[in-house]
């Protein structure tokens, strides 16, 4: 009997724990409209790897979808569901499949690691449109017709930041805290390095990929190592950089953010952030879906189409000449007068 009782207790705890975990990653759609709806709402579901309040990758898609919902007329016009913290690809795949079978019009798989699952799931739900990123492959060569792809030319904003960083650095040493050398993180860091070198070839850019998207403590010590190496300007990408920004703040080192506006974390030292506005892409995708096309197109946000915006910290006293330099660089990338070659693999 004793044994049975303890088993029941353990089972009870596990169920409770799973319930709480489930609550934290809510897959609950926003309230269905209570009054008679004019038409069926457009239904969007998002699956993302980290938390929607990470001030980085997942935050960027959350903000975009929330904005789209407002633009299209609020909760009665667009129903939105989020499943975040889907670090485990198998869990994400299950969520993607669930949303598709529940009849969502657009299921967004916000993580390049979800591609392998998506190419298997999408053909089973030909009435549902899928979008995934950051990636460039819509799988049309594999006969898939209902997948959109989106990516960020984050090297462009990175280049602008690099130019500014090199102009502002007095020590001539810039530190970068990166996650894993893939995707838009790699593009951003490569662009940043090129921009810094273009502005001042004598500047040293120390790049440290810590091989984790989530280890905040390690990111913090990586930033400290950059400071020890003489950096007076730093940047970094992915959600674990919140740890690095704290160290930058403590040491009076300037910080350039990316993916979301990171000014609120350290108003004294954040110079500017490259912010992703995925709504630029989502508007097109939704219009296409409403026109009957469910996939097959690859999009990229960049400085020119307004999907990437350099947001300056209004409280940071940026010298006028550096601001002008930044604006000129942005303009130059848009009109093609500034070109650069990204390193190959």
């Amino acid at each position: 009997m004793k044994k049975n009782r303890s088993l029941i207790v353990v089972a009870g705890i596990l169920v409770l724990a799973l319930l709480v975990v489930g609550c934290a990653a809510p897959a609950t759609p926003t309230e269905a409209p209570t009054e008679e709806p004019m038409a069926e709402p457009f239904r969007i579901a998002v699956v993302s790897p980290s938390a929607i309040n990470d001030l980085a990758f997942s935050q960027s898609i959350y903000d975009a979808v929330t904005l789209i919902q407002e633009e299209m007329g609020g909760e009665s016009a667009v129903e939105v569901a989020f499943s975040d913290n889907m670090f485990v690809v198998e869990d994400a795949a299950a969520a993607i499949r669930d949303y598709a079978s529940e009849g969502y019009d657009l299921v967004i798989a916000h993580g390049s690691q979800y591609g392998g699952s998506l190419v298997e799931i999408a053909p089973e739900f030909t009435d549902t449109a899928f979008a995934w990123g950051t990636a460039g492959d819509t799988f049309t060569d594999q006969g898939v017709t209902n997948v959109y792809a989106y990516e960020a030319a984050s090297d462009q904003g990175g280049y602008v930041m690099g130019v500014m960083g090199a102009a502002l650095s007095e020590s001539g040493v810039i530190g970068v805290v990166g996650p894993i050398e893939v995707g838009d993180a790699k593009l951003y860091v490569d662009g940043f390095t090129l921009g810094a070198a273009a502005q001042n070839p004598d500047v040293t850019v120390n790049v440290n990929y810590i091989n984790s998207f989530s280890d905040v403590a390690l990111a913090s010590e990586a930033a400290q190592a950059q400071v020890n190496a003489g950096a007076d300007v730093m940047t970094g990408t992915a959600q674990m950089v919140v740890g690095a920004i704290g160290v930058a703040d403590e040491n009076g080192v300037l910080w350039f953010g990316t993916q979301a506006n990171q000014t609120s974390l350290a108003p004294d030292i954040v110079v500017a952030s490259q912010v992703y506005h995925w709504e630029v892409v989502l508007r097109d995708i939704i219009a296409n879906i409403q026109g009957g096309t469910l996939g097959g197109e690859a999009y990229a946000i960049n400085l020119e189409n307004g999907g990437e915006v350099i947001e300056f910290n209004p409280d940071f006293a940026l010298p006028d000449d550096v601001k002008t330099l930044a604006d000129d660089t942005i303009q130059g990338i848009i009109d093609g007068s500034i070109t650069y070659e990204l390193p190959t693999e």
Partner: protein
Amino acid sequence: MLSELLTTDVLIGIVASGIRLATSYLYAAIGETFGQLSGVLNLGVDGIMLMGAFGAYYAVIKTDSLFLGVLTAVGIGLIMGLAMAYVSVTLQAEQGISGIGFYLFGLGMSDLLFRKLVGTPLPASTFPRLHIPLLSDMPILGEVFFRHSLMVYLAFLLVPISSYVINRTTFGLKVRAVGQNPEAGDTLGINVNRIRYTTVILGSVLAAVGGASLSIALLGIFQQNLTNGQGFIAVALVYFGAWRPAGVMGGALLYGLVAALVLAGNTTGIIPRSGADIAAMMPALLTILALVIATRQVHQPAALSKPYKRGE
């Protein structure tokens, strides 16, 4: 190239960084040592650390009092420890499984509370680095050892204190007796369950404070899954240290120092970019290796993870 890594400044930076990184592991692992010595394996450490980290962070952003932050973590540790002890001692549940349950609870609950109560992450104030007259000003030694925050010193102070408690007090003797042979202890009049409740609760409090040492000392921020699995490494460090506080400290320092060494190597370019992923595995790899070699000679507490049932 290597000479770049071996400059005094860089070496100082590495050791100081290793000490900071070891701190949160040290709190959690010393706490876990008490529990395991008395025969209770608590695998929920990481969940308790997360709850402590969030509680301390939330208290600090609301009140700006670091003291209240630590106090909140202590309170959370008490409650979660009491619950853990109830499940594993009174209800005699399978400890490996119930610990995982506590971990998942802490992981989810800390994120849920963070989202509902805070939303957009705000920076929290942190324990300042102390400046100790004379000591902090010493060249090299001062920079390595005497410019840390109070939370770092407390963690290392725990090592001699817990060593003393375990080896030189009646309480410590009872803890070890209960972990080796609870039947014999019971015969001698030791209240087995009371001892185990005490150690599990103490361990939980230290785990929660370890979490706080991340959120309101090292980082000044909270994020979903802030500990990133540190609690599980802490459990491994207890085995590594062979249930001796000094050994546990050695393990935590080894782990922290190797991690700091890899970071410095990456930063200065001594570790090439192509080797970064292999280098990132080094702390865990070395710890496992040392664990294999070190634990050949020692034996775990005989009654570890075995619930005690009187009269069976």
